């Protein structure tokens, strides 16, 4: 990589929360600024440097015909394209519309829907261009983002966990909310990354970091249903921030065929 690699942070359909994770690095961001040139990061600066970029962090999903073209230009301008967050890696919460009639949504929301150009589905970046690394989370974990950038600077493979949220619950001494309190939780099938925040605050896991490696969704949902959780609630739990990820989608579609 170049002496001072050039970094771009780009946005598609998203809430900007994952870009904020970069700002949340605070002191580590200043340190990072010594090693990389932040060439394009509208969330932080109006100074815009043209491409090409060594590293592009791409937030957001593809939801408009314009974005569908723009992502190809981003790919052309970027040596490493890294998608950040549930929108970019799985279509995001806005992918809930993939199970509905988007024309109907347009009519319900906009007074003049004829001016809106939106695609029928919200899709992850990897459906459109080659992606070098996907960093999951809603939002992403700043420390994991830092690890990605650090590993790129040193030319090694990033270390991000593939294990379930359960392992992190146990490591931090959080009692299982499903076993001890009967709360439905996606922790056993969700990739770690948040540090098991929700179970630690008495909530079931929402699956913000997407499916863990080889998730056994059929077993988990069958067990939840056998313990009295309604099928409707299980489907709603699966269709969250990462509902359109292939594994969660296949299971919710099995339970509630579209």
């Amino acid at each position: 990589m170049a002496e001072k690699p050039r970094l771009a942070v780009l946005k598609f359909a998203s809430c900007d929360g994952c870009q904020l994770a970069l700002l949340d690095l605070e002191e580590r961001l200043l340190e990072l600024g010594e090693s990389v040139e932040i060439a394009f990061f509208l969330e932080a600066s109006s100074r815009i440097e043209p491409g090409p970029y060594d590293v592009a962090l791409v937030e957001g999903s593809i939801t408009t015909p314009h974005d569908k073209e723009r992502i190809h230009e981003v790919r052309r301008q970027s040596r490493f394209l890294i998608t950040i967050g549930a929108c970019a890696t799985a279509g995001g919460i806005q992918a809930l519309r993939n199970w509905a009639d988007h024309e109907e949504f347009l009519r319900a929301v906009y007074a003049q829907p004829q001016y809106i150009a939106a695609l029928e589905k919200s899709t992850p970046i990897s459906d459109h261009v080659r992606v070098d690394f996907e960093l999951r989370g809603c939002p992403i974990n700043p420390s994991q983002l830092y690890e990605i950038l650090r590993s790129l600077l040193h030319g090694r493979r990033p270390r991000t966990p593939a294990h379930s949220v359960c392992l992190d619950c146990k490591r931090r001494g959080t009692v299982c909310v499903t076993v001890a309190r009967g709360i439905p939780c996606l922790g056993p099938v969700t990739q770690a990354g948040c540090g098991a925040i929700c179970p630690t605050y008495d909530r079931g896991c929402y699956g913000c970091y997407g499916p863990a490696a080889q998730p056994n969704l059929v077993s988990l949902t069958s067990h939840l249903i056998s313990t009295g959780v309604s099928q409707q609630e299980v489907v709603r739990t699966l269709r969250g921030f990462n509902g359109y990820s292939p594994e969660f989608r296949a299971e919710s579609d099995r339970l509630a065929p579209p």
Partner: protein
Amino acid sequence: MAGELADSSSRKKEALFANREEFARIVPLLRERGYAVIGPTIEQGAIVYAPIDSVEQLPIGWTDRQEAGMYRLERRADDAWFGYVVGPFSWKQYLFPPHTKMSESLLTAEGWEFRAVEDDAPMYAFLGVRACDLAALAIQDRVFMNGPYVDPVYEKRRRRALTIAVNCTQAAPTCFCASMGTGPHCRYGFDIAVTELSDGFLLEVGSERGEEIVSGLATSAATELQMAEAHQRRARAVAQITRKLDTHDIRNVLLSQLEHPRWQHVAERCLSCANCTMVCPTCFCCSVEEVADLAETRVERHRSWDSCFNWNFSYMNGGIVRQDIRARYRQWLTHKLASWIDQFGVSGCVGCGRCITWCPVGIDLTEEVAVIRGEAT
């Protein structure tokens, strides 16, 4: 003696009696001697092991109801202090902590400087260690302290720790310590062992350190009646144990059934989420990671709990060895119950039942073994 593990088996057991008020003094007594007392207490809807500074923090008047995949706290009809079995925590939380900084290295003008990290954990007094957990401590002693590579973190914490055991006077449907020959009666490995009676506690001293603590309490020699009550209460726990695991020739039985169709059957239910290994008081898998700063001039070595159920845990140069859940469940069960014997001379299972209760889908290893043995279908 400080630094020596309790060898209660060789000591003469003369039972003493302390009433509740007197026994309550044991916590301040231990604290005065510099111990951090860890005992059962209610947190997050379960009985966990956490620092306590008074017996009032014990789950007095509470019990636990356990089944495969289910745990609930319930009120008792009485005010027993130890009227429950084991919860999601085990003592390994304190002896083999989930995260440990092992060492650090700094790049200086003279080259790399390596430094060990001194463990600053307090001196623990474990209050309420059950017979199955005494067995688990003995197993982890073999893993971490016997042999050429002694784990410094475990060893230091373990040698300084004081163990106050509690005899179970009831059992959960998930308990099967009797099958594993580990309980419910505490017979070795404690400094003090306690049996709760209706009006106080029967105390057995297991070590000189234990004796020194007990001598600070006003006790009397236990009466025949108190001894009989203790015996009857312990017998109640024995009678309540219904779950069984047939250990006869288990090593050969399991290792000769590596292609049994049951492995696929359990793989369809297993989430490979690692909960069983996390709650297991003997599982010791961990991973070690080097964490560097951006300039890579300061590197820390961290150790964290890990699990054979994690997909990439068996990653070696060239790839992952145990690619599917079937292979990973089989690895866990055959290690725990069979190859552990080859490795450490004992079974890795103490029959505490935690893996059954805390499996989110209620997989029961005793049932899996029975099917593989051909006892059930």
